[in-house]
């Protein structure tokens, strides 16, 4: 395998180095990619067309929202894939019990208290990131991951069961499905309102908004959907990976 | 030359295919099942006969199903050659069906339903080849025939059948994919997208001499059912089949499909005149001559009667190929007639071999001493068949031999005449001793005690019929002759 790896690496590397001589200089503002009409359009017109100052969000959730839909689906798929891979035949005897307060007390006091303090703050911040994605870096993904991280933190500093009591794996998967459903449902609404899939501007027919504002709100809607899915799946993946898919014990 | 558009060729082909369903459905009631076979056989013969007058008047019947490749349709076309072949095949099917009922029931063979069903499919394929209007249609039915006969050849499903079946399919399928298919595609490209058989050939003028030689060799080897050496060994291997299969398929349908395809390629694809101008057929002439002699010599060494007949068939098939490759009018007429004559003679011989096996359980020539007087009908029929194959008057084989000799003289090739003469002598040497032993050698010790009697009536009737058929073909060859002549005439 080493020989094979070396050959592959040398061949590919040589090929890539060969092409790098032809690259535009690094940071060149007028390189073909940076000066293309697509890129210029996004920079110059996206605010006008979507009223979202963060161009990345505008492109992500509107111009290329179909990509992002499937990005969400990728995450969703990963969650289901991991569950289906790790889940053995269901053991009917094990009933999931609520972790008693005892288990909470058992864990390290400093850790527990710090976690108690931190988690609400993290979650608030996550919501802020989701909601403020229009104006600052962030959006559904980042916020979702952060929110998921807060749940993982609970599972880490107490026990997995503690976190599962808050949100069981089944509920997490339902939440994830709902997230994808929100996203694609908004898209489908656009179809039902007589336009193409994910064309948020037609939402102005039902909302008291102009077409451009409708796009902005459409983006907010899909970002929420993304956040739901990412939160749920991040937690579900962690829960499965840390417990061999048995939902007991944890790290 | 008038052209009639009619669906009759299609119907004639399909009728036996359609009967497969009823055969399978009535598998629990053998009598009903066999009556389906007969019904289809007579309908088929009726349709074929109804087309005969038009063909005899020099007309052709055409029917196009649909275009299957650009410029290539699944199409049927009946002319003299096809008519002759179809006539032989459909007549003999009825006779063989009768014979197989007797044979199969007496031998208490298993899976008789499968047997009759695939037999019907094989007949459809045979008629399909006979009536096909272009190379592609012909190839389609050719492959269908190879595949549908596999379960028949391996009917016994034992170790021997397995080995035989393996050889059978390897040769037939392998050569057709490896040689015939590329040759066909190359032909398709060279001819500019046409593959319709026309007398005079559609390739005339569009290929060079070397290409034509290579293509011709590819076709002759590709249609390995013609049994030209070195691709002949499937035929002896196929003798593991029950005798009715050997009789109809390996004396009539399958092998004749092979030579029929070769004839079609020579007359319809290249054209006799074109080949003659290129001299491309010389290789085939020599290949066929070698096969004629070598197979005859091999036949001498066989003790198993069916295998001996198989080698005889290989040698006789090469007569037909040889006759076509000589590229003279008489030889072509002779070789086309030989399709019918040999079919009638050889099927008689196989019927006899089967009847002997049914009645006595004997397979080997050396065991057949003295059985002649116990089974007089069978052995007398054998004698008639053998004489017809050898080519003595007053039997049908005499006509075809005559025309072949005439053709060889026309080509001014003394060697060919010699080949034909020597092989006729060899025919005598390997066919007649069986009859001689049966009638003149007293039975050995082991045989005296066995209660010998004739085979079942259902077996004896067909073989008597075909034996007299040989005689009849000598007396009334006009129809066959005129059908064969239709092909020899330039259009």
């Amino acid at each position, binding site marked *: 395998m080493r020989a094979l790896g070396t050959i592959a690496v040398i061949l590919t590397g040589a*090929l890539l180095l060969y092409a790098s001589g032809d690259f535009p200089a690094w940071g060149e503002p007028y390189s073909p990619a940076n000066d293309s009409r697509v890129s210029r359009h996004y920079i110059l017109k996206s605010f006008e067309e979507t009223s979202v100052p963060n161009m990345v969000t505008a492109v992500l959730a509107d111009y290329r929202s179909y990509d992002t839909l499937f990005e969400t689906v990728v995450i969703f798929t990963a969650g*289901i894939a991991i569950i289906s891979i790790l889940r053995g035949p269901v053991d009917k005897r094990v009933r999931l019990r609520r972790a008693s307060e005892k288990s909470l007390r058992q864990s390290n006091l400093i850790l527990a208290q710090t976690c108690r303090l931190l988690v609400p703050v993290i979650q608030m911040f996550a919501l802020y990131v989701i909601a403020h994605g229009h104006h600052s870096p962030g959006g559904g993904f980042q916020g979702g991951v952060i929110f998921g991280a807060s749940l993982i933190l609970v599972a880490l500093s107490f026990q997995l069961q503690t976190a599962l009591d808050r949100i069981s794996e089944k509920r997490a998967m339902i939440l994830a499905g709902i997230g994808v459903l929100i996203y*694609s449902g908004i898209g489908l609404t656009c179809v039902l309102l007589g336009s193409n*899939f994910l064309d*948020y501007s037609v939402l102005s027919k039902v909302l008291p908004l102009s077409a451009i504002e409708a796009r902005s709100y459409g983006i907010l809607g899909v970002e929420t959907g993304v956040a739901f899915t990412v939160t749920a799946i991040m937690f579900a993946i962690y829960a499965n990976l840390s417990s061999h898919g048995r939902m007991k014990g944890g790290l | 030359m008038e052209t009639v558009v009619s669906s009759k060729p299609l119907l004639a082909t399909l009728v036996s295919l359609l009967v497969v369903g009823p055969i399978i459905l009535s598998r629990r009631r053998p009598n009903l099942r066999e009556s389906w076979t007969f019904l289809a056989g007579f309908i088929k013969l009726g349709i074929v006969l109804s087309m005969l007058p038009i063909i005899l008047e020099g007309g052709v019947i055409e029917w196009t199903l649909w275009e299957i490749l650009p410029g290539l349709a699944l199409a049927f076309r009946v002319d003299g050659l096809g008519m002759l072949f179809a006539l032989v095949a459909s007549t003999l099917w009825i006779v063989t069906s009768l014979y197989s009922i007797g044979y199969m029931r007496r031998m208490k063979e298993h899976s008789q339903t499968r047997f009759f069903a695939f037999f019907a499919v094989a007949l459809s394929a045979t008629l399909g080849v006979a009536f096909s209007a272009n190379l592609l249609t012909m190839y389609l039915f050719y492959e269908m025939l190879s595949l549908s006969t596999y379960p028949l050849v391996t009917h016994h499903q034992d170790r021997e059948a397995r080995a035989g079946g393996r050889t059978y399919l390897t040769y037939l399928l392998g050569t057709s994919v490896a040689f015939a298919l590329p040759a066909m595609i190359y032909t398709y490209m060279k001819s500019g997208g046409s593959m319709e058989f026309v007398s005079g050939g559609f390739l005339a003028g569009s290929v060079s001499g070397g290409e034509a030689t290579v293509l011709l060799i590819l076709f002759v080897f590709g249609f390995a059912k013609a049994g030209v050496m070195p691709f002949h060994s499937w035929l002896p291997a196929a003798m593991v089949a029950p005798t009715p299969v050997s009789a109809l398929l390996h004396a009539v349908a399958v092998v004749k499909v092979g030579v029929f395809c070769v004839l079609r390629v020579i007359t319809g694809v290249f054209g006799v005149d074109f080949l003659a101008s290129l001299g491309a057929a010389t290789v085939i002439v020599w290949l066929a001559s070698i096969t004629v002699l070598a197979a005859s010599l091999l036949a001498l060494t066989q003790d198993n009667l069916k295998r001996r007949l198989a080698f005889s068939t290989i040698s006789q098939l090469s007569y037909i190929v040889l006759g076509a490759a000589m590229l003279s009018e008489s030889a072509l007429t002779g070789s086309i007639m030989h399709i019918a004559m040999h079919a009638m003679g050889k099927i008689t011989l196989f019927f006899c071999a089967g009847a002997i096996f049914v009645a006595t359980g004997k397979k080997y020539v050396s065991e057949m001493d003295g059985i002649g007087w116990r089974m007089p009908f069978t052995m007398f029929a054998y004698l008639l068949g053998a004489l017809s194959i050898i080519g003595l008057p007053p039997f049908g084989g005499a006509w075809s031999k005559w025309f072949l000799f005439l053709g060889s003289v026309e080509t001014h090739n003394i060697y060919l005449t010699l080949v034909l003469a020597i092989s006729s002598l060899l025919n005598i040497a390997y066919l007649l001793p069986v009859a001689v032993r049966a009638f003149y050698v007293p039975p050995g010790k082991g045989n005296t005690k066995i209660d010998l009697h004739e085979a079942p009536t259902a077996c004896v009737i067909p073989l008597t019929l075909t034996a007299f058929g040989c005689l009849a073909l000598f007396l009334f060859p006009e129809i066959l002759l005129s059908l064969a002549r239709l092909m020899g005439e330039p259009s």
Partner: protein
Amino acid sequence: MVDQYPAIVLLAPFFAAIAVSLLGNWKSGFCLPLTVLSLVISLMSSIALLGQVAESGEVVYLLGGWPRPYGIEFRVDPLNGLLLVVICTIALLSSIYSIRAAAVETPDKCPQFYTLYLLLVTGLLGMSMTGDAFNLYVLVEVASLTSYALIAMRSKRAVLASFNYIIMGTIGASFYLLGVGYLYMKTGSLNMVDIREVLLESGLYTSETILVAFMMIMVGVWIKMAFFPLHGWLPNAYSYAPSTASCVLAPLVTKVTVYVMIRMMFTVFGPEYVFVYLGWSDVVVWMAIVAILAGSILALAQTDLKKMLSYLIVAEVGYMVGGVWLANETALVGAIYHVISDAFMTLCLFLAAGAIITKTGKYCIKDMEGLFRKMPWTMVGFVIAALSMIGIPPTCGFFSKWYLINGGIEAGNWGYVAALLISSLINAILFFRVIEVAYFKKESTDSDKEETVSGSSGVGEPPLTMLGPLLVTAVCLLLIGIFNQEIVILIRQAVSSFGPLGFIG
């Protein structure tokens, strides 16, 4: 409604996947009806879409209403129109087949299985419709992730096969992504049609970056389609996967990737770049020849039925790559026709193999004695597929071979013609080995006999839900063969829109 067909084709299985994942946990009885219903809707609208395309040419569907090149678009021409119908049909047939098999092979995972299944179909449909190079990557990943999971659902060896697939698949997809990056760097666009326009306008043919982009994309898709010698992941993955999964993976994934290759070569780079400027077609065709021969010979060495079929896929990929790279219209038409016919052939073979394995529990070819007697209809399906693989008319395999050989002769590449013929012969040997074993009875000792007596009580025809799809597929093989003219006319329509295919031949 009419202009929404592309969306409906994709969204039906997509929404069904979400619905299955939401409702399946509650009541697993919902899974199958939803799956079948959505695939029927998808199939019907894909047929309608194909009709629309055949009538009025290319259909463009702008997602989000953003015009090219700012948004993402679906572009449906006769080529992927046909592919959509094929994908939907095959997915539908194998979903019906999965009713019983899934319950046996992946118990307790019904909702997950069907969700993944539908997402896989969604991914494949998306891959064939999209007109955006990066979006293609995302959908490739959707299809790949679902495949990894579907393969790993069974235990032991399947899991290792799945891991190797993850590694190889990621390398392939990443190479593709890198190639798209290189293209983007030079053209500034991601839309396939737009990229080609920029390539032509800016005269980028001589650029090393574009060359490397092309090579990266090709190597990426070759890994994904298991083009020899990059095929390492495929045989184990497909042969150890649950039969329900392999029934949809084996026919579709490699074929859709071949479509991606065709799309990349002809729509993005353009034949004038690939064939005229680069002129590598000979090299790749020779690689394809090696692939065909190696795949066939490796298949010959297998004793496990599904593994043998998997190696045959490797050989068939060689057919298609060779056909595409022969650089003439006949061969390209043949290759595309072979994509369609091979999808059905593979489906038929895997359905038959799956039925045999679920009913008898035997994997080895030599254990399959007497199957014709026990399950005659299954074997009828198998035989028809085998005949098609060998290339006997009037099955579709004959016609695809016809066009491919025709193209090979036209290009004067005799090696390719010979390889096709040799592989046909090897296929004949392979399949008759199986058929022979199944046709003949066991020549056995007494102990074996007892075993068969005790074992044969449960062995009979598979249930109708398995047999039905198998026989329908077998009939499809014949229909595709008989009506190849109609299909080829559509393909030619697509091929002619690619422009002249170079000056070879």
